[in-house]
C-alpha cells in the first residue's frame, strides 16, 4: 500500500482507516508475522518428523492460519471504540462459556485440559478470553471513573475471579499470572492508590508461594530452575546450547543442529532456534521490534483524552509484553520454564489467532480518535500526525 492509494479527503472506511491507523506499529506487527513464518519453517520439520507427521505439516498449517489471522487483525482494527468493547464483551462471554465446555468435555494435552476440538483446528478459549477481559475491564473501570456510582471495579473484579477460577481448574498457572498482570496494570493506570497496587502485588506474591506448595508441577518447575541438578532440565540445557552454538550471526536458517534435540522447538522454544540459526544480530532486532511495539503503543495513547483507551491499550500491551518476556526468559533460563508461545512467531493456531485479535484491538485503540467533548476544539489546530515521534 502506498500513500497515494488514498487521498486524505477519502471518506470511505478504508480511506479513514489508512489515515488514522498507526502505520509504523502495523509495519512492526507484519514484520513479526514474517519472522514467524521463517522461524516456524526452520524449527518445525524435525519436530514434525519426530512425531510422525509430514515435515511440512506445521509450516503449511502456520501459513493457512496466517490468512484468518491477518483478516482478524485488520478487521478488528477497523472497529470504532464502541464496537470494539461490544466485540470484547461478546468474546468474553462466549470465551467463558467455552472454557466451561472445555472443562467438561475438552481433551487433555500434556496434563492440562485447555483445548476445544473443532474440525481442522483446536482452539484454546482462554487465549481469547485474555484480550477480551483486558478491554472489558478497562471499559468497566473507565466507566466508574466517569460515573462513580457505577460499580465498575466490583464487576471487573468479579469477572476476574470467574476467569482465573476457570484457568486454575484447567490448570493453567501461566495464563492466570498474565490475567492477574492485566488487571493490576489497569487498576494501576486508573490511578488507584499506590498502596492498593502494592497490596495487590503482595497478594499475587502470596498466591504464587501458595501455588508452589499446592501445585506439584509448578513446584517441580521452580525447583528445577533453582537447582538444575534436582530434575530433568534437558530441554532448557539444549536451548542454552543452541544460543551458544548460534553466536553472532547464527548457523543460517535451517542449518541448526542443536534444535534437532529440542522437543518443543517450534512452539515453546522457538526463540532458542532463532538464536542458533540467526544469531545475536537477529535476536537483537527481534527484541527491538518487540520493545518498539509496546512502547510505540504506549506513546500513541499518551495524548488520548479517553481513559478507556489508555487502560485497554495498557492492559493489552502488558499482556503482549509479558507473554513475550516469559517465553524469552524461559528460553534463556532466566525464569522457571513456562511453556508460553512467542507472540506471532511460535507455531500454534490458537495462539496466533488470539494474538492477532489482541493486536487488532491495539491497532483499533491507537487509531487517531476524533476528540470527545470539550477537547474536540483543539483538533483543528493540530495536524492529524502531530502525535508521532
Amino acid at each position, binding site marked *: 500500500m502506498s500513500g497515494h492509494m488514498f487521498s486524505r479527503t477519502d471518506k470511505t472506511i478504508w480511506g479513514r482507516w489508512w489515515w488514522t491507523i498507526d502505520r509504523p506499529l502495523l509495519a512492526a506487527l507484519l514484520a513479526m508475522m514474517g519472522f514467524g513464518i521463517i522461524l516456524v519453517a526452520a524449527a518445525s520439520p524435525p519436530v514434525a518428523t519426530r512425531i*510422525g507427521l509430514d515435515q511440512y505439516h506445521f509450516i503449511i498449517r502456520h501459513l493457512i492460519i496466517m490468512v484468518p489471522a491477518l483478516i482478524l487483525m485488520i478487521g478488528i482494527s477497523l472497529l470504532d471504540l464502541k464496537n470494539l468493547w461490544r466485540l470484547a464483551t461478546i468474546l468474553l462471554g462466549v470465551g467463558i462459556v467455552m472454557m466451561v465446555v472445555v472443562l467438561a468435555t475438552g481433551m487433555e494435552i500434556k496434563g492440562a485440559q485447555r483445548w476445544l476440538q473443532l474440525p481442522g483446528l483446536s482452539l484454546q478459549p482462554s487465549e481469547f478470553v485474555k484480550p477480551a477481559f483486558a478491554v472489558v475491564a478497562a471499559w468497566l473501570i473507565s466507566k466508574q471513573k466517569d460515573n462513580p456510582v457505577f460499580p465498575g471495579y466490583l464487576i471487573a473484579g468479579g469477572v476476574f475471579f470467574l476467569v482465573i477460577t476457570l484457568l486454575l481448574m484447567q490448570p493453567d498457572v501461566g495464563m492466570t499470572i498474565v490475567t492477574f498482570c492485566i488487571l493490576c496494570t489497569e487498576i494501576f493506570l486508573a490511578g488507584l492508590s499506590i498502596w492498593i497496587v502494592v497490596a495487590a502485588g503482595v497478594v499475587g506474591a502470596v498466591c504464587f508461594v501458595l501455588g508452589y506448595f499446592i501445585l506439584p508441577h509448578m513446584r517441580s518447575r521452580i525447583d528445577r530452575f533453582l537447582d538444575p541438578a534436582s530434575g530433568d532440565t534437558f530441554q532448557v540445557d539444549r536451548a542454552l546450547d543452541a544460543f551458544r*552454538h548460534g553466536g*553472532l550471526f547464527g548457523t543460517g536458517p535451517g542449518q541448526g543442529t542443536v534444535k534437532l534435540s529440542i522437543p518443543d522447538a517450534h512452539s515453546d522454544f522457538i526463540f532458542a532456534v532463532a538464536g542458533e540459526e540467526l544469531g545475536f544480530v537477529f535476536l537483537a532486532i527481534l527484541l527491538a521490534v518487540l520493545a518498539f511495539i509496546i512502547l510505540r503503543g504506549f506513546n500513541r495513547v499518551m495524548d488520548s*483524552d479517553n*481513559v478507556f483507551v489508555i487502560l485497554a491499550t495498557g492492559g493489552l500491551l502488558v499482556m503482549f509484553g509479558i507473554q513475550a518476556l516469559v517465553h524469552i526468559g524461559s528460553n534463556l533460563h532466566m525464569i522457571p520454564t513456562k511453556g508460553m508461545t512467542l507472540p506471532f512467531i511460535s507455531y500454534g493456531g490458537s495462539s496466533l489467532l488470539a494474538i492477532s485479535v489482541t493486536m487488532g484491538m491495539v491497532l483499533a485503540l491507537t487509531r487517531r480518535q476524533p476528540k470527545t467533548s470539550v477537547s474536540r476544539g483543539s483538533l483543528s489546530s493540530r495536524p492529524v500526525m502531530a502525535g508521532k515521534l
Partner: protein
Amino acid sequence: MSLPPLFRRPSTTLIGSRRSTLDVARGRLVFVGIVFALAYILVAARVMDLTLIQGELPRLARMTSPDQGVTNEPVIAVAKLRGDVVDRNGVLLARSLKTASLYADPALITDPDQVAKDLVRVLPDLKYGDVLQKLQRKTRFIWLRRNLAPQDQYAILNLGHPGLNFQDEAHRIYPQGPLTAHMVGFTDIDGHGLGGVERSFDDLLAMGNRPLQLTLDVRLQHIARRELKAAIREFSGIGGAAVIMDVNTGEILAAVSAPDFDPHNVTQKNSDSLFNRLTLGVYEMGSTFKIFSTAALLEIKNVGMGQTFDAREPIKIGRFSITDYHGQNRVLTIPEVMMYSSNIGAAKMAEMIGTQSFKNFLKDVGLMDTVQVELQERSRPLIPNPWREITTLTASYGHGIAVTPLQTVSAVASVINGGMLVHPTLVMDGTVNDSGKTKNTKRNAVRVVSEKTSHRMRQILRLVVSDGTAKSADIAGFQVGGKTGTAEKPGGHGGYDRKRLLSSFIGVFPMNKPQYVVMVMVDEPKGTKASYGYATAGWVAAPAVGKIITAMVPVLGLVPQDIDPEKDMAAQMRPYVKDKTGKQLVSVGVE
C-alpha cells in the same frame, strides 16, 4: 526510542477530576513503559552473554590457539575413554580405543539407492536391503555401523555422500581374547561393565584415571587354561575350572573357568560359557573336604596321629549308608583315612569333633559364607537348613554341602599356610584406593588353625601325593602335597548319580614352605581306555595339576631341591600307615 514528556498537552478546559485521572494514567503508563524497557534491556544482555560471551568468544579463542586450529565444535560430547585393565606384570588385558561410528541423516540423503550401493561396496558385511531401508526412514539419525576401522572411515569419507556422518565412540579391546574372560569380564556396546572386574569396578574404570592392575599373571593363566582344557578334552568333561593362588596372600595368579567365551562377541548364544564355575558355581566338592575334617580334629580334639577309626563296616543311618571307595576294611589311622580317602573314617572323625564344633570350623575357614573376591558373580554356599546330624557326617567327606571351588581353594590355603586365614583377591594392593573401596590389608591377621596343626596337615597332604591317590601330581623336587576329590553329582531323584562325577585335585607346593596352591576341577569327566575307565580325580585332575606345576616352575624361576627321602614331609607319617596288603610302610618306629 525516546519517551514522550509526561504532560504533553496541559489543558485547563477539562473538568478537574477527569483531567487529573488522565494525568495520573499517563504518568503511570510512562512508568510501565520504563519497566518494560528495562526488562527488554536485561533480556538483551542475557542474549549477548549466551551468544557472544559464552558462544562466540570460546570459538574465537580456539581458532586463535595454534595447536587446535579450526575445529568442529563437539555438539555431542565424546565419551571419556575407559581405564585399562592390566595383569600383575603390566600386560594389557583390556583397553578402550577411540573409533568412529557411522550414522546417517536420511533427510540429507538425496539418492538412498546409490548411497546404499556404495556403502555395501565399502563395508561388505552390511546388507544392501537393510541399509536402503534405514536410509529411507523418516528420521534425522540412524546408526549404520558402530566402531569402524580407520581405513573404512577413510573410504566412506572418500565416497563424498552428504548425510553420512561419524561420531567418535570408544571400543573395548581385550588383547588376550578369551584367556581372562571370566575374570576381566566384558562391557556392552556403550561401555558399561557387565561381567568380571569390568562390572565390579565399573565406576572406577569409567573414570579412566589409571589402569586397574590385577593379580593375574597371563603366563600362568595360559598354562592353567591349556592344561584344564586338555584334561576336559581328554576325559570329555562338560566344563571345569582351574586356579593358581598364592597360599600366603590369597592373590589369584590364574583363574580359569571352562568353557569360556570371546569378550568381544558376547551373545545370548554363549550364555552357558559366560557362567563362572569358579565363583558362581556351587558344587559338592567331595573328598577335598576331608582336609577340613582332619584339620578340625587335630585342632579341636588335639589327638595323636595314631588315633584310629574303625572303617570295617559301612555306617548306616536310616536309609543312608556311608561306604568307602578304596575300601580297606580295617581300622585306620588319621593319615590312612586321608591317604586311602576313607569316607567312613572321615565320618567317624566328624562324629568325634561334634556337629557344632565342625560347623564353627567350616565357618572359620570361610566355607559357610559367600566367597570374598572382587567380582559380582558370586554365590552363597548351599548349606542344609536345618543342619542334621547326618549332615555333619556327609559334610566330612564333602557331600550335602555345596560351595564354590574358589572358596574351597582359599580354605585349603588358610589351613596349609601356617594357619592364617586368607581371602582370595584379584586386584593388586593400592590400585583401588581412588574409588573409596579400600582393600582389607589386614587379611592375614586371623588365625584359623595352630602352626602345629598346619604343619601336620602339610605332612599328611604330602603323604597323599607321595604314597596315596594323587601320585601323578608328584613333581620331583617340589614336595607337592594335596588331596583328590571325586564327588558324585546329585541325580534327578534326590540321590546321587554314580555316572556323573566332579573330579578335582587341590595341590600345594612346596610342602616344607608352601607358596602356591593349584586346583583343577573337571565337571562330568568320562573314563578312557588309558585310565582303565576311571574318571576319578587321581586320573583326571591330579595329572593336570602335575602338568601345571611342571610348566609354572620355570616361569616363576623356582629351583627344585633334592631332598633326602628321610627328610621328606611325608616321612614322619609313614610309620602310621600300612599299605594295601596291610604291611607297615616303614618298619622304623619314630615314636
